[in-house]
């Protein structure tokens, strides 16, 4: 792996960029903006070789850097990539330039500080994804709060201070409890091996007694569940989303929430496998409650941004359901669903932000019939909506389908083994989320874009300009790329997921045959949709 410099470069570029941007005087708006965009694009371009150069057959860490850091505490600086974080790293670098481009007209005050904060956020998020040492992970994990705190607090809406303090305190509480568990785990490792180490690889090997495992798992799970956010820890999310500026919402939905689910995959589950299996029914239950509850709340919203925020809770419920189903299909579906949610929901927030800039309202009732006035907007909004409700052919379908299939398989295997039908029942309930999802999204589209034009103001709406189309096109391309050719993405993560599942003795199926099957089903469905459309 001679390529470790590349990953470091991708990681530290945003940090350097943040400083560069701060050095530009705030009065030179356009310079700051183009500089930020350029730096973000460089970051993305640099990350492409990481993806293409990633060897899917090697389950060991790739692009690995490992150097001792605080050696008297046994802490080393280790970063690296494997099948579990590769897609999320790519998602982060992919969304970077899009977020910057989308805010060109939205941010007016303290522009250089704003972009510096975006870069800091980018830096800490990438850091948390690539970190392979628990201490380093925690540093990035917690440091992430700082830029987000300012982004919501300075550039947010009316109740921004309430929202940002709530966001900060909620997540910090979770992190602090996790930190105790981190130290305790490292200490158990120290007692067993005689050396202090926070490396993931070393900590995975620690054998913890089931009782203590439960407590430590709960401590980690609480922190991650707040970040996901899972029911009942979700209350900070709608506030944060609604008050955050568009860029903040996009990053929050696109990447930040994945920290929670990623944390489960990377830490809570592999560190405490027995506790994870023991808590699986509970976690699944909470996930399914989240799916249905989030969807129902979304139905009741009159504020578009809030509606999308609640739909996030529902979508991430699927991810959690997939992860705790412990089989290849569901876990791969969950990873893909993380990316999907980042793209679809990110795009939805982008579009809400665009319309908000024009009309300064997020109330559904203030719109209606705008499809005829701004057709280009309506076109993109429809695609993104369909992706969000997981129409076959779009990315959402692949993820949700695999998760549900995997969850059923898992529930069925439990049923066959000891006749417990609870998990099977949960999987069935989860399916209803798809239906409610279609309901609230399509209802939103109907009220938002179709029908008669009630408000005079809406008649003067401008359609999307070329910059905004430029923002949306990459998103739409990704929606269809993942939707139509998911196997290239699964190839990258396949082996790592198998490795991840090694600890859990559950029923497994060959993934490749199923993916082909899924693609077959999709093509069939795609034909029908196309026929219906024409």
């Amino acid at each position, binding site marked *: 792996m001679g390529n470790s410099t590349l990953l470091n470069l991708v990681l530290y570029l945003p940090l350097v960029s943040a400083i560069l941007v701060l050095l530009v005087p705030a009065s030179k708006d356009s310079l700051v903006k183009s500089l930020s965009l350029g730096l973000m694009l460089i970051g993305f371009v640099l990350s492409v070789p990481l993806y293409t150069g990633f060897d899917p057959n090697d389950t060991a860490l790739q692009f690995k850097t490992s150097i001792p850091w605080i050696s008297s*505490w046994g802490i080393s600086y280790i970063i690296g990539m494997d099948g579990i974080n590769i897609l999320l790293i790519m998602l982060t670098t992919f969304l970077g330039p899009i977020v910057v481009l989308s805010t060109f007209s939205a941010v007016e005050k303290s522009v250089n500080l704003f972009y510096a904060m975006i870069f800091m956020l980018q830096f800490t998020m990438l850091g948390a994804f690539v970190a392979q040492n628990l201490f380093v992970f925690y*540093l990035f994990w917690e*440091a992430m709060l700082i830029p987000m705190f*300012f982004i919501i607090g300075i550039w947010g809406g009316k109740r921004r201070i309430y929202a940002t303090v709530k966001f*900060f305190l909620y997540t910090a509480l979770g992190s602090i*409890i996790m930190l*105790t568990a981190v*130290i305790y785990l490292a*200490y158990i490792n120290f007692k067993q091996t005689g050396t202090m180490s926070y490396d993931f690889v070393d900590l995975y090997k620690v054998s913890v007694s089931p009782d203590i495992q439960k407590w430590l798992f709960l401590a980690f799970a609480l922190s991650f569940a707040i970040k996901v956010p899972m029911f009942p820890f979700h209350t900070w999310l709608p506030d944060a989303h609604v008050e955050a500026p568009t860029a903040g919402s996009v990053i929050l939905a696109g990447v930040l929430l994945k920290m929670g689910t990623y944390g489960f995959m990377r830490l809570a589950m592999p560190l405490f496998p027995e506790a994870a299996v023991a808590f699986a029914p509970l976690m699944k239950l909470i996930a399914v409650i989240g799916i249905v509850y989030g969807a129902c709340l979304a139905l009741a919203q009159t504020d578009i941004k809030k509606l999308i925020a609640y739909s996030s809770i529902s979508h991430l419920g699927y991810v959690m359901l997939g992860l705790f189903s412990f089989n290849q299909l569901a876990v791969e579906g969950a990873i893909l669903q993380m990316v999907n949610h980042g793209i679809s929901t990110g795009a939805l927030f982008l579009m809400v932000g665009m319309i908000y800039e024009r009309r300064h309202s997020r109330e559904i009732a203030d719109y209606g019939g705008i499809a005829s006035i701004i057709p280009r907007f309506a076109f993109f909004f429809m695609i993104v909506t369909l992706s969000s409700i997981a129409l076959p052919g779009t990315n959402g379908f692949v993820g949700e389908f695999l998760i549900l299939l995997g969850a059923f398989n898992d529930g069925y295997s439990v049923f066959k083994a000891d006749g417990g039908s609870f998990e099977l029942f949960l999987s069935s309930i989860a399916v209803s989320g798809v239906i409610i999802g279609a309901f609230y999204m399509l209802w939103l589209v109907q009220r938002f874009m179709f029908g008669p034009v009630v408000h005079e103001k809406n008649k003067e709406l401008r359609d999307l300009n070329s910059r905004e189309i430029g923002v949306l096109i990459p998103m739409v391309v990704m929606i269809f790329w993942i939707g139509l050719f998911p196997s290239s993405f699964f190839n990258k993560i396949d082996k790592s997921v198998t490795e991840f599942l090694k600890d859990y003795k559950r029923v497994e199926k060959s993934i490749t045959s199923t993916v082909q099957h899924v693609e077959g089903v999709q093509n069939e469905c795609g034909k029908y949709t196309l026929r219906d459309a024409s």
Partner: protein
Amino acid sequence: MCLEIFKTSKVSAFYLSLIGIFSAIIVLSIQFLSKTSFQLFEGHLIVDSFAISSKSVLLIAAGLILMLLPKKFQEIKFYMLFASSVYGAMLMVGSGTFLTLFIGLELMSIPVYVMVMFKFSSAREVEASMKYIVLGGVSSAILLLGISFLYGNSGGIGLLSLGHVQINHETYFITGIILVFMAFFFKASIVPFHGWSPDVYQGATQPVTAYMAAIVKAAIFLSMVRVFGGFQIPKALIGVLVALPLVSVIWGNVGAIWQKSFKRMMAYSSIAHAGYVMFAFLDTTGERSTAIAFYATVYAIMTILAFAAVIYFSDDEEEIDDLESFKGIFKKKPVAAGFMIIAMFSLAGIPPFPGFYAKFFIFKSLVASGYPVLALVAFICSFLGIFFYIRVLVNIFMYTEPEGRIVTVQPKGSVATANFWVLNVMAISLMIILFMSVNPENIIRIFGVSL
């Protein structure tokens, strides 16, 4: 040696004091690099690596505070007080017996009583000074009483021998230890001996408050390492050492939430921080001294940074202390506001700032010594603290300036000269903080080799 150089600076003005401090630091670093270690005056004074590194920390902090002093304090009288107080602090960390420790403590405290009311402009400063004198006197008396009990037990007043002293009279010994701890708790403002600190902190001028919060506190912590660094805590005391710091952390953090004055808030914050430090005395893994010294260093630097930023907020003559008046100040003083981010998040213990490492160090040793539940509780209590630190930032960044306040544009020249040094202070502390964040290992090792 270093002390001689420092004495010369007493009679000089600002620059000479700075030069004095600077040359003292150079002497100390030479001593450190050559690994000097000897005892003076039959063991009353110890020069070892711990003393050297602690003195360097105190001197750097003193130099920074010196630069923060406003014009009205720039008098030889004040510098004399300042220098002798710093000298006392250095004597404390280098003391080999209770005798030198006590002399150092008095030498450090007595000038501070005067510094608090120096050039007083209101009764508040006098009141603060009086409170400080009375309570400081009481704590000195308690310390002396404790020392005499310990002397009654062993017939010696050596500090190094305290850990393995023969216990002849258990009651004497335990009482003595408790009294010495009490005296230190007084000075470090641990609940229930904390009552004086909010009033005194609020009464003093900001740089003097910074001096009390940073240097006096750090000197107390560091000299506690001298006294109890390798000391096996008797079983009878463990309950107290669990309870009092915990109560301090809660009291400090909760109390700070309600404060409207920045200095009062920092006083409560310092109560909480003293609580964290005292947790280290439960440590049994041998990391106690390093953890405390590291914490004291970090705490001193970040407190100074916070005060420097606030002093920079103030327009020349009048002090800004009301948290309300911080609102929207980011627009006027963006650089200082930026430094405030670092200071506040560091004090709150949010990574990647050094405050986090310091807290991590203490809690790590707490878990390793078999108190995981206490660590959890203490962590959750420390969470309470986050709220008021970020409230400062909310005020600075997220509110616009309250209406009706007249924005006066200062003539640039006068402000620039006064603020030049404050900016320097911020820049130097920033460099130290960056150094500590990127590579805490070095600082740990500097203290790790000692004792």
